[in-house]
């Protein structure tokens, strides 16, 4: 599964994207964030407050309870500030 990071989430993780094998038992976007936060200091920093992080599956906004099964690309980013 491909993960992409944007803005300060990208800066804290230290890379714009990566391919990962999600361990069994992780079913939702929220669970994925909790697991990511355990992958090291930079991830812990990026995902220290998961409530503020937004997510998209295959380029569509999703909530933390969204299932990740079948997802090709999951993106994590801060609240948007365009316009």
């Amino acid at each position, binding site marked *: 599964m491909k993960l*992409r990071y944007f803005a300060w989430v990208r800066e804290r993780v230290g890379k714009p994207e990566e391919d990962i094998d999600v361990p069994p038992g992780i079913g939702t976007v929220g669970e994925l964030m909790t697991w990511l936060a355990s992958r090291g200091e930079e991830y812990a920093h990026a995902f220290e407050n998961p409530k503020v992080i937004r997510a998209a599956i295959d*380029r569509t906004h999703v909530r933390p309870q969204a299932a990740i099964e079948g997802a090709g690309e999951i993106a994590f980013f801060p609240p948007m500030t365009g316009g």
Partner: protein
Amino acid sequence: MTIASTVRLQREPFDVSAEAAKLTRGRTDVGAVVTFTGICRGDEAGEQIAALTLEHYPGMAEAEIERHVADALTRWPLLGVTVIHRHGRMQPGEDIVMVATASSHRQAAFAAAEFLMDYLKTRAPFWKQVEKAGAKTWVDAKEADDAAAGRWSPTRKQAVE
């Protein structure tokens, strides 16, 4: 009735009047064109800004804007919509984003332009970083922008929190 719809993301500056003129060229059914231009301000909370950098999520940004343009077309009798959003680094005084809406009457054009801007600010995947006093900082999302977008949806289902 032809509906001219354009969504573009680009690094380069755009020409607001040329884009607005395209919405009325060769037709006489348009009675109103509203244009909104978002411009890079020279200060943020009283501090001078050297530049603004806009990061975006390629692919999703276009799709998200197109989704809201399609939504606007179902809500109002529009004859044309143009949304252009820049990304990359820009300096104070430069245009960042433009929305132009065309309709037979002004109400639809005004409302649709405001609707599109409210959604662009809260739902389109763009992030602003400002450079000031030698430091780069990410701009925080504003609750007022969420509230502005929320008023278009009675169920507020677009609010993530």
